[in-house]
């Protein structure tokens, strides 16, 4: 009885994912090790399906930047140090097919205080055409990173540059001083 319900329950979840064109989805604590393993699996799967090389490279590039954004900027994380420092950041990453295009969505919580600046950057990027994104990337490549920044501040530009359509994003207020942030790129 229990096992039937269990299978039914998860078949339902799987059917939902399948209907949305989702190829794989990971939700939980992410680390650089998981980034590496999922990234390899993603590349192998696309290569086996004979996706063309440039598309595989663009999908992989967007995947890496989105995963590293979650790892670095998720407001929900646990840290510890045993032999070497460990950091796990909560979030989700979803890859699927929609209208003949690959899409990648990342989702993670962010502090509400960080939302306006992030929203401004995304809105600015969304309004740029291909050439303007390229120029913006070149400018930012030459800028020294902001104080305390762990990344190069060009990850979002890289995502917009590799995407074939303007990026889409959204924030959902979670009522605890945090918001759920989603970013979708189509390649």
């Amino acid at each position, binding site marked *: 009885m229990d096992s039937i319900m269990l299978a039914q329950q998860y078949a339902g979840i799987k059917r939902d994912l399948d209907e949305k064109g989702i190829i794989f989805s990971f939700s939980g604590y992410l680390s650089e090790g998981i980034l590496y393993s999922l990234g390899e699996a993603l*590349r192998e799967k696309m290569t086996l399906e004979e996706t063309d090389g440039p598309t595989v*490279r*663009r999908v992989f590039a967007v995947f*890496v930047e989105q995963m590293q954004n979650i790892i670095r900027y998720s407001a929900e994380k646990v840290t510890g140090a045993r032999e070497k420092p460990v950091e796990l950041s909560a979030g989700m990453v979803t890859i699927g097919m929609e209208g003949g295009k690959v899409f990648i969505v990342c989702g993670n919580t962010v502090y509400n205080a960080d939302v306006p600046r992030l929203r401004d950057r995304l809105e600015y990027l969304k309004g740029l055409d291909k050439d303007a994104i390229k120029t913006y990337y070149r400018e930012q*490549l030459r800028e020294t990173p902001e104080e305390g920044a762990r990344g190069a501040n*060009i990850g979002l530009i*890289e995502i917009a540059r590799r995407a074939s359509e303007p990026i889409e994003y959204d924030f959902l207020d979670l009522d605890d001083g945090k918001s759920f942030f989603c970013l979708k790129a189509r390649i």
Partner: protein
Amino acid sequence: MDIRTTMESLKIPATGRTPEVDFDFAQGVLRLSGESYPDDVATFFGPIFAALRAFLAEAGGHPIRFDMELLYFNSSSAKALMNIFQMLETAAGDGRSISVTWCYEENDESMQELGEDFAEDLEHVAFTLKQIPADGAS
């Protein structure tokens, strides 16, 4: 990480996420190849910057040939590469002969464009974009 460094060379074998570094300082031939998306860019590139800085500080010295054969690098690595290019440009401006060859696989328009991005403010470094055959392994 197995780093072998002597006065004459800096060699770091490739890993799944970091490129092979083969800097033959004695011959003036430096090469970066493979992929670069390390979990910690500063830790990986720190020793490379240090070795390159020391090498470039030598007065006179050989002409330098730098072969960039990266198939993929993430945005944090892009900043590190920019740092390397700026070091090379400064040394070239001081009179050292430096040439860079940026290799990209055929059909890899992104990598070709990135080469153009990096070349944009190189005045003294001789920069060449070079198409190489795709190895089929994406």
